[in-house]
């Protein structure tokens, strides 16, 4: 995983140096090109996790952007209209994430989607307390986070 990523970067820099155009488009093109070359080279080997994870990471970024924009529009609509549609509350979400990195990233992504704010984690690290603005149904709210963010994040990290 790490070696392949470094090889990918190295090939990209070689591409940029050889073509002599040091701009962002060329860098991105080199990155995609060397990714493809590495994919062809390592196709017969067993360590293909790098080529599974990169699409997963990209799809996670798009999923996150989609959630971010959707939730921002929901909050924006609530701000413009005079009536309040909020149904706030603090919900404890049982965690499957175990390590520091997993919990930190999950809490960060939960805070970044509007309407939810992670407040604290219990001392035994089994529950994440989240303040949400739109909790119509508690179990759906928990399910949304568990099957959306947590599942995707753990797929990438494990």
């Amino acid at each position, binding site marked *: 995983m790490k070696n392949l990523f470094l090889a990918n970067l190295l090939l990209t820099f070689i591409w940029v140096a050889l073509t002599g155009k040091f701009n962002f488009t060329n860098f991105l093109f080199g990155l995609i090109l060397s990714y493809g070359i590495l994919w062809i080279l390592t196709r017969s080997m067993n360590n293909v996790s790098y080529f599974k994870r990169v699409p997963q990471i990209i799809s996670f970024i798009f999923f996150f952007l989609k959630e971010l924009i959707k939730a*921002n529009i929901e909050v924006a609509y609530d701000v413009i209209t005079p009536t309040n549609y909020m149904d*706030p509350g*603090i919900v404890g979400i*049982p965690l499957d994430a175990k390590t520091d990195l997993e919990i930190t990233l999950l809490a960060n992504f939960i805070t*970044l989607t509007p309407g939810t704010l992670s*407040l*604290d984690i219990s001392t*035994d690290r089994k529950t994440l*307390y989240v303040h949400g603005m739109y909790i119509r149904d508690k179990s759906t709210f928990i399910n949304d986070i568990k099957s959306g963010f947590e599942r995707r994040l753990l797929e990438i990290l494990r």
Partner: protein
Amino acid sequence: MNDILIIGFATLGAIFILLAGIGLLKMPDFYMRVSISTKAITLGTGLILIAAALAFQDFSITSRVIAIILFIILTAPVAAHMIGKAAYFTGIKLWKNTSVNDLSKKYDKKRHTLDSVDNDASN
């Protein structure tokens, strides 16, 4: 085409930041204010920075924009999380219409420990 993209991103970013400002005035309690301001401002600043990167079309500026967005995404939630946590434990009241509160009575002030949700109550 590029001009349209720049105008679109910059306007959207400004609108989101404006809405965050209105939201700060309108929201009924502290937690929702924190909630609104951090997120809308992250998205707004991000969009304006992307517009700047598109306007200059320069590698040094694009790389700086990416670094700034990355660090905002990394640091803004941590700050919001710390402020929210401090607010809850110093006893800032929730809004009167707050429906669920799983966090009440879970914090042990003497031992500074926080219990997790017991499964009987959540089901």
